[in-house]
């Protein structure tokens, strides 16, 4: 009996073209659009060496410490030593971002202000501050030169200890794809909603007929929800395969955990839909509206439309992070991607399981009654 209901409900879901589009095709289309939009964003974020000119004159040669300082940051600058006239020409032609000229002190010439120009200036300020510190030390305590203090001024100490951070390089773009997967999982709520409609005598004529059958309600609920979860898992798996195999989105190397997250999230999505559908007696359209609205709010708060929103919620209203299933889903992926330890991941999974049980129980309590006040 369970299998009979399950198979027919799955058939109904798979043949519902609208549902198939929104739950299976739409996330894939959106992923493609994300990919096209954010691949350029990734490229823009990658750092390239700053083209900078240095006027090669007598005064420069009198300050070999400056040349050494420039050499100490080979990944920061691509330096061209040249004459002042040529440096001006290069700046004019846009070949360099700026040029440095020792002319009665250290001077920087730039054509416009921007990030690269700011970086060059910061470098010069740092050099001047360090030089000034050494001069002060020498003038006040000449013995310090013997103790090697000036050298130690140039040393930099890291007060943060680096820890292994997962298998992948940090990438802000990947967070958008996490939100997309969260959205796809939450789209299971639409299948869940339809399943409740199909079994409730006061919500559909088919439901009234189903209610007349000599079957316990719990059996119908479990079979119907299993069908919805199965379909949604197909949809989420298709999305994951597309993201990993076609778009080459790097989710780290923890496929088992990703699968676990997807399964738990899908169950949460489906039970959320059955919950919304069963606890209010509005029309199907209103129920769908409530689902779309709540899904959009949840995914927005989890950072799908504005990447800093996740951080804002976490710092301003941290409890909301734990109340929002979409955030828990994205955060599970996030935790998998960035951390080697799984404490945060399993906290999220446990919360999602809790929500699934809560939504499922509330659904059962709402639909178990079989006699209605009106039909």
């Amino acid at each position: 009996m369970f299998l009979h209901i399950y198979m027919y409900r799955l058939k109904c879901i798979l043949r519902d073209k609208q549902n198939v589009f929104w739950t299976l095709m739409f996330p894939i289309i959106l992923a493609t659009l994300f990919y096209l939009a954010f691949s350029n964003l990734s490229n823009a974020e990658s750092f390239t060496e700053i083209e900078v000119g240095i006027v090669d004159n007598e005064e420069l040669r009198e300050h070999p410490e400056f040349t050494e300082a420039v050499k100490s940051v080979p990944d920061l600058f691509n330096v061209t030593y040249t004459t002042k006239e040529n440096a001006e020409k290069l700046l004019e032609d846009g070949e360099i971002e700026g040029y440095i000229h020792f002319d009665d002190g250290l001077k920087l010439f730039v054509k416009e202000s921007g990030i690269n120009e700011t970086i060059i200036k910061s470098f010069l300020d740092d050099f001047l501050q360090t030089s000034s510190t050494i001069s002060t030390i020498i003038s006040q305590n000449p013995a310090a030169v013997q103790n090697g203090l000036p050298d130690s001024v140039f040393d930099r100490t890291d007060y943060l200890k680096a820890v292994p951070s997962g298998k992948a390089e940090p990438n802000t773009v990947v967070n958008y794809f996490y939100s997309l997967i969260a959205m796809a999982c939450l789209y299971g709520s639409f299948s869940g909603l339809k399943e409740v409609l199909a079994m409730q005598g006061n919500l559909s004529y088919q439901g009234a007929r189903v209610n007349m059958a000599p079957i316990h309600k719990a059996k119908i609920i479990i079979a119907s929800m299993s069908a919805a979860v199965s379909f949604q898992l197909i949809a989420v798996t298709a999305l994951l395969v597309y993201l990993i195999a076609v778009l080459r989105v790097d989710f780290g190397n923890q496929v088992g955990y990703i699968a676990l997250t997807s399964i738990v999230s899908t169950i949460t999505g489906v039970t959320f839909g059955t919950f919304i559908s069963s606890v209010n007696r509005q029309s199907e359209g209103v129920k769908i509206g409530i689902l779309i609205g709540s899904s959009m709010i949840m995914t927005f708060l989890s950072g799908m439309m504005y990447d800093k929103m996740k951080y804002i919620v976490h710092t301003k209203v941290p409890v909301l992070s734990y109340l929002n299933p979409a955030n828990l889903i994205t955060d599970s992926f996030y935790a998998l991607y960035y951390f080697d330890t799984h404490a945060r991941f399993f906290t999220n999974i446990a919360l999602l399981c809790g929500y699934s049980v809560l939504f499922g129980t509330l659904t059962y309590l709402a639909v178990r009654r079989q006699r209605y006040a009106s039909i």
Partner: protein
Amino acid sequence: MIIKVNNLVKRYDDLIALDHFNLEVKEGEIFGLLGPNGSGKTTAINCILSLLKYDKGTIEVYGRPMAPDAYDIKRNIGIIMQNVAVFDELTVYENIDYFCGMYIKDKKKRRELVEEAIEFVELDSFRKFLPKKLSGGLLRRLNIACGIAHKPKLIILDEPTVAVDPQSRRKILEGIRKLNDDGATIVYTSHYMEEVEEICTRIAIMDKGKVIALGTKDELKGMINSGEKITVEILEHNPDILEGVRSLPNIVSAEFNDNMLVAKSRRGKNNLSALLEYLRSSQINVGRIYSEPPTLNDVFLEITGKELRDHA
């Protein structure tokens, strides 16, 4: 007694949908619930099926209290709703199989029953069609097949012929008779008096949530004072004859409809011959003559003072 309903009361806020409703349905009969729209027929059926809560009263089916979890009773009931209750995503065959499968576990037996149901409603050529490809009449037949495929002993049909073409209606009515011949007890609700008169062995007439008359169609017609309606074609129109006709014993009313004289009589003998004798003695030439016995509409009209609104 297959169904026994005692003093059933169902309220929707201030509206009393069923007002101490009583009903008894015997095994093997085709029992008709006749009443205008809004008289409480569907509410009564939904209460009997335990789909609706009610405020007061008792319902027994097969001698036991009816309840949502009375699965043994439900197993023997087939329901054909007023609205078509099938899934748009499943074909004709799949819809019947899905609902039949909720009653019959054995696959082989189920397959046979589904085939029988398809044959019964004559949808064999449409078995792979989705419901949206079917006409209104075919959809109604599919709706019936979904309700009867598991061979229930009690079949409840709630207005199964609404918005159905005459050909499909004929097939549906023939099918109901056949189901009854095969041993099923039928409860048939309708506001089409001709259908109820045609197929039902006993009829309850409902109005405002109450049974206002109950019996066979002849018993119901015998309850009222109205007799036959006599229509006579008058070849030479003469309005003066109306007074004379009205003065005849047992004639309640007389009026002209174009050149047709329509006279309504009280229950009694020789009303037609008395009228014709009067016309002959008045040397009035007549053409066609019709005499119609009272209908259930007359019964309803006499009891409630209003007509059954829709006609088949």
